């Protein structure tokens, strides 16, 4: 068996999932690791579910086998459930607490479950579950759109994450516009310390 670390990201178009993924991937490359990643472009980005999955280490395909993810970052509560087939009881799962209710719910053609139900369902299956208020922390950092960096910070603080905080920060510097870097770094730190201090 080869040593492969598998990360699943899932969110809604516009939340910055691809940016967060690219930052991790480039950092892994800087560390000299092989990394393969699959991202979604095109129609699915118009308010739809956006999935990126990747494998760091000796793998050829970026697609993660069912139940095989080491880490999942869900940018939205119900999206965590949508990708529940990819995780197992030992997967580290970071979930953003803020729901994004799609228009189909207002129109009455689909249903958004109670948040407590969503979190109970996740909690009943997953041991290392971290539900964090990324929106609040992003606002505190200075801009709500830095949610993705809060979640990235949280992921980086999980025990088996294969890349150092320093390399991730370096990759952020190379991938984010200079004028928003300060806010993004602050957002990252907030997410990082949230997990480190063990709150969930």
């Amino acid at each position, binding site marked *: 068996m080869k040593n492969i670390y598998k990360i699943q990201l899932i969110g809604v178009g516009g939340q910055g999932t691809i940016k967060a993924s690219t930052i991790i991937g480039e950092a892994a*490359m800087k560390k000299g690791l092989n990394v393969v990643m699959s991202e979604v472009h*095109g129609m699915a980005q118009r308010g739809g579910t956006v999935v990126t999955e990747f494998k760091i280490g000796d793998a050829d395909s970026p697609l993660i086998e069912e139940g095989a993810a080491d880490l999942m970052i869900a940018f939205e509560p119900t999206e965590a459930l*949508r990708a529940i087939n990819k995780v197992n009881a030992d997967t580290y799962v970071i979930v953003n607490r803020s729901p994004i209710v799609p228009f189909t719910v207002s129109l009455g053609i689909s249903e958004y479950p109670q948040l407590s139900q969503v979190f109970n369902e996740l909690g009943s299956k997953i041991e290392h579950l971290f539900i964090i208020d990324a929106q609040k922390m992003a606002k505190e950092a200075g801009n709500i759109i830095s949610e993705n960096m809060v979640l990235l910070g949280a992921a980086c603080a999980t025990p088996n994450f294969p890349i150092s905080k320093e390399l991730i920060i370096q990759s952020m510097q190379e991938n984010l516009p200079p004028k928003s870097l300060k806010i993004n770094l602050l957002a990252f730190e907030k997410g990082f310390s949230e997990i480190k201090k063990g709150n969930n």
Partner: protein
Amino acid sequence: MKVKEILTEKEGGKLFLLGNEAAVRGALESGVSLVSTYPGTPSSEIGNVFYKIANDAGVYFEFSSNEKVALEVSAAAAASGLRSFVFMKHVGLNVAADSFMSTVYTGVKGGMIVLSADDPSMYSSQNEQDNRIMARLGGIPLLEPSNPQEVKDLMKFGFELSEKYEIPVLMRTTTRISHMRGVVELGPVVKGKEKGFFQKNPGQYVVMPAYAVKMREKLMNKLGMIKEDANHSSLNKTIDMGGKSLGIVTSGGAYNYVMDVVNENDLKVKILKLAFSHPFPEKLVLDFISSVDNILVVEEVEPVMENEILAIIGKNNLDKKVHGKLDGTLPRIYEYNPDIISLGMAKIVDKKIKKREKFVTKLPLPLRPPVLCPGCPHRATSFALKKAIKKLKIKEEDIIYSSDIGCYALAIQEPYKMADYCISMGSSIGIGCGFAKATDQKVISFIGDSTFFHAGMAGLVNAVHNKDNLLLVIQDNRITGMTGGQTNPGTPLDGMGNPAPEVSLEGIAKGSGADFVKTVDPFNMKETEQVFKDALQCNGVAVVITKHPCAMLTDAKNRKKGINIKYFVNQEKCINCMICVKDFTCPAFYIEKDGSVNINPLLCDGCGVCVQVCPKKAIEVKE
């Protein structure tokens, strides 16, 4: 990484590239001179990168009006001795097919690569066609990369092969290769020739029957020689995991899944990976299948190699079992992944294949279909048209909405339901003509600016000449929207961002002789509704051009200027009639737990159209 680094990063460096970005770098390392395309997912990002770097790279790049034109532009450049690169989505090759087939006959001087990005599972497409079959139909060499590094390397190889045999080369990627990111080691960027020179030779370039019969023979001879190259190419490699009971033949993205499953389960198999797969390397494959007991073919989408292998087995009277799509070991439809390969493998190997438990949830999950963006002019157009139809008391069942490929087809959803028939780029008008002749129903055809330039113009000419009764709505959002915002002939910029003449939609419509032609801004709802009423009552071909920039363009402009207008619902005036939520359906609206209607400031793009929609004037600008 910044996009520019795809051009500027030095030899020996490494970049974390998308397959599509690796194709750009591969072309640059090959000294490409001319690049053309019509945007189509999953190939679009190749063009988006060239748009940004072509000027600096000294490469000519254009968004052609359609794939056929793009292929012709590249073919002529290659005939003039330049290296050219044309790329498109798989169905784009159907549009280009006529010239594609003949360019294989004429051949080229400079290297020419045609890249087709296929879309297994149809993430952004209308069908799942496998363009490896197009390679066989046309008689063109085929390359199938498995990851971004191979995309780049095969581009370089492809140009050399193309020049060696004076034949264009087809590269087939799939969505998972085009949109896969991986570490790519770089070679040096080579500056291409600025200008070529066309040496006249009608016997080579004019496909009149007398010449074409000779070209056909010449092509067969070339393919025979290229087949020998494929038999001996290091791109086609055997990976021996230490066993001979099962030999797996695979290519492209399918290879990655095979390797991950084989490695995880430590399977003792032999693998033949074909990256140079047409002409099919018959001798190499025969040697391989002779060295194993049974064969599994793993390929996306059609059983193309499987059929080739069965033919080889038949031709050589071999007694081998071939597993794949045809015997049901693997599915015939949709893209593969490691789990699908594991399931298939479990049916035919002695070893137990690792199977993990998988969680499922019984909770209902909200549907997130792609929707028109907040501020999208197509929503305003659809709303105004619906209103006009209601006021004229035309019944919905008496209308046929013939839609086309573009964002406006998203009006298929509730409550608009304005897409009854939609098959291909530009088809809305030809289909509309047919319905106008075949029924007494009112035909309304929708098309976008880019799609109209692409393949709609011929339909309009047909409608006018054949005296059809239809309303054509050209939804001119000043850009090619659905593929991410590329320029088109109606945009004042060309494919490299330089100023360019805007081709007039109204001029074309008037020139065609349509009975009614009007341009209107859909954000002016009242006027738009009136124009639609007039157009619907016109007997003959009525063309309404609804002209307003795509919300992506407006949002970008506003961000740059620091404009940040938001609307909100004045709860004292709101009567909860729900017109904004249920009839207009801008996704920025939501209903609070207390039942009140609100606007999400993060989603509101400040277009203000909802103000005109609200009967109680309850929507106001945020101070």
